[in-house]
């Protein structure tokens, strides 16, 4: 018993050094060497300023931008230092009310068009960088009008940005909102 207790203490300390400190530091060093950009969060710069991570959603609410999925992360949403979802259960009246409100607004914006489910639901992380192609096409008329450009030209751009399934099999087709918006700012800038 006593010998095993001493071993337990020593074993805890020795393995903490090996598995808790040496291992993560070695992996950090290797990751920084091999995949520098990815290991640091794929930060994107524009005009010399860091403006976000390519793989995290940031808020867009103006008519001239495509909007990411709704976010329940942090107090105001899109808090990349406090990720999380709504955790609304399927029969929660608050969920039903929120969706009803958003559906009414969406129908006003694009009447007669079916509303894609990912347009009015919150994501799991609150930082989902993607929307479905259906979601982007739903928002297309609003964005085109705000940018004073034709929907056909913008539709081509949206289609260029569709990421297909990985290896043609994995995941779901999707569009990265930040990349799409940045590309659109370059090619069809807002005319003031």
């Amino acid at each position, binding site marked *: 018993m006593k010998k095993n207790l001493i071993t337990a203490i020593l074993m*805890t300390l020795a393995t903490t050094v090996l598995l808790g*400190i040496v291992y993560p530091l070695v992996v950090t060093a290797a990751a920084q060497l091999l995949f520098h950009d990815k290991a640091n969060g794929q930060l994107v710069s524009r005009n010399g300023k860091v403006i976000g991570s390519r793989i995290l959603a940031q808020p867009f609410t103006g008519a001239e931008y495509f909007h990411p999925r709704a976010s329940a992360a942090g107090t105001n949403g899109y808090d990349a230092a406090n990720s999380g979802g709504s955790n609304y259960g399927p029969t929660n009246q608050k969920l039903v009310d929120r969706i009803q409100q958003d*559906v009414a607004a969406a129908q006003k914006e694009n009447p007669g068009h079916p509303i894609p489910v990912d347009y009015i639901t919150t994501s799991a992380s609150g930082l989902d960088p993607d929307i479905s192609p259906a979601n982007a096409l739903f928002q297309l008329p609003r964005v085109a009008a705000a940018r004073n450009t034709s929907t056909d030209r913008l539709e081509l751009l949206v289609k260029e940005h569709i990421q297909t399934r990985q290896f043609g099999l994995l995941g779901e087709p999707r569009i990265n909102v930040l990349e799409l918006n940045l590309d659109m700012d370059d090619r069809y800038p807002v005319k003031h």
Partner: protein
Amino acid sequence: MTLNGWLQIALFFLLILAVTKPLGVFITRVFAREKTFLDPILRPVERLLYRVTGVDETREMGWMEYAVAMLLFSLVSMLLLYAMQRVQGWLPFNPQKLGAVSPGHLAWNTAASFTTNTNWQAYSGETTMSYFTQMAGLAYHNFVSAATGIALAVAFIRGIARRQAETIGNFWVDLVRASLWVLLPFCVVGSLLLVSQGVVQNLRPYDTVKLVEAQKVPHLNADGKPAVGANGQPVMDTVTEQVIAQGPVASQEFIKEWGTNGGGFFNANSAHPFENPTPLSNLLEIFAIAAIGAALTYTLGRMTGSPRHGWALFGAMAALFLAGILVTYWAESQGNPLLHGVEQHASQLQPGGNMEGKEVRFGVANSALFATVTTDTSCGAVNSWHDSFTPLGGMALMINMMLGEVIFGGVGSGMYGMLVFVILTVFIAGLMVGRTPEYLGKKIEGYEVKMSMLFALVFPLIILVLTAISSVKQFGTWAIANPGPHGLSEILYAFTSAAANNGSAFGGLNANTAWYNTAIGFAALGGRFLMKVPMLAIAGSLARKKYVPPSVGTFPVTTPLFSVLLIGVIVILGALTFFPALSLGPILEHLLMNAGKAF
């Protein structure tokens, strides 16, 4: 449900099937102390560890000493984790200057939960834990709680395989070999693969970035309510920045799955793009969750000289896995009937289904698959919020856990949990034909059956008693986020998850309270150690027995008939125990939802 969804599920299953034998053989060799290709690097490290800690690697232990060593190690490492959280403010690798984890019951809950391989999280990672605590406290326990589980499973299998033996192995040697051979090398490779997909791995402070479009948000008063100006209009603030949490994520991410731990670096766990950025990283993660649990079935077959018995267990697990994924995938694809005016059908342009609390890159197929795998095993990592699943989808996840985490199961714990069910199955089969039950040449007698029943009773007792208390007392119901039957589901899920050492949650439940932190901590400890000790007692008793060669009357444990009987025992035991509670929670909710009722 789509063809593509089923293809992805099939691909996952084929990968697990393919890895079962090679990994199972590898694990067998590691614990038989045979040569492996990793010896030139790992053997010197192993010897050094024994020298530092005073372990005699040639000495073996009886089951009681084995149990004592395991308990002492768990206790010491748990105390260290508690202390580390409380003093993290003074420790290095803390660029955000996060203070001590408080209150004390939160640190207690986290220490209990990570020591037991549960990884229930009442805290939010990026706002609570320093990089040091994440690496040397939490990720460290991901290694050793998993290694402990594997050690115990191997000790149990030795008990079955050995004849008239007094010992079942040396806990310290099993612990070290599980950590160094079975976990560490795979984690180094797996972590880097994850980084290649975009999982972050750094020690930098959180980044502050300038938003492309500045945002107006309501100004909140000190009481948390939106402020109203003199003109009656809401006061608005302008937000121009986003703070991005960083950290050594990948090194923790892979062991989180490979060791079926499940505690996320970030609050959003594997839904966070920095933990699980692409569909490929997602596949890698679910593969890692189930691989060791599946491989141990082959290890069992090989160590006991009956590979077909191992495959019979694998078959039972596979059948239960398929049943679970079928229900959950179907239920989530149906969407939510209470949402009107929303297109929820899958098409070329959208995944469709119940997308509240799910990510677009995963859709319903990969969310349902991840959720099924994480609850089949005792992992508990999530890539979508189970609380927002449809009632039946969420119920299937709960049932996966209620069956005792034996569908591939937690690393090690799934195997010994399954072996207890095997003993009960053999016993019941023996009763049916009127013969003394035998299992792989060992007579199963009163002692083993009593210990198995103890194992089988502790689990529902913890869950149902604590759920009952929480659902009638104000300190329990106060924390419910979703009213109606779903509220009961939240509480039931929490204690099931804790006792099963799973750690996933119906996350709406505000579990960071004195009652839940304390009760869930004890539920996790009970679900782990009150079940491990009887299990080791069975191992010790079996090891001492004489070998009885099989006769014509022996019920074979290598046939599909045995797999079916085993499934029957698991399902009946689980259904009888939990059906009443489930009918008041998810089943009732499903009926009311389809009748158009919200709460």
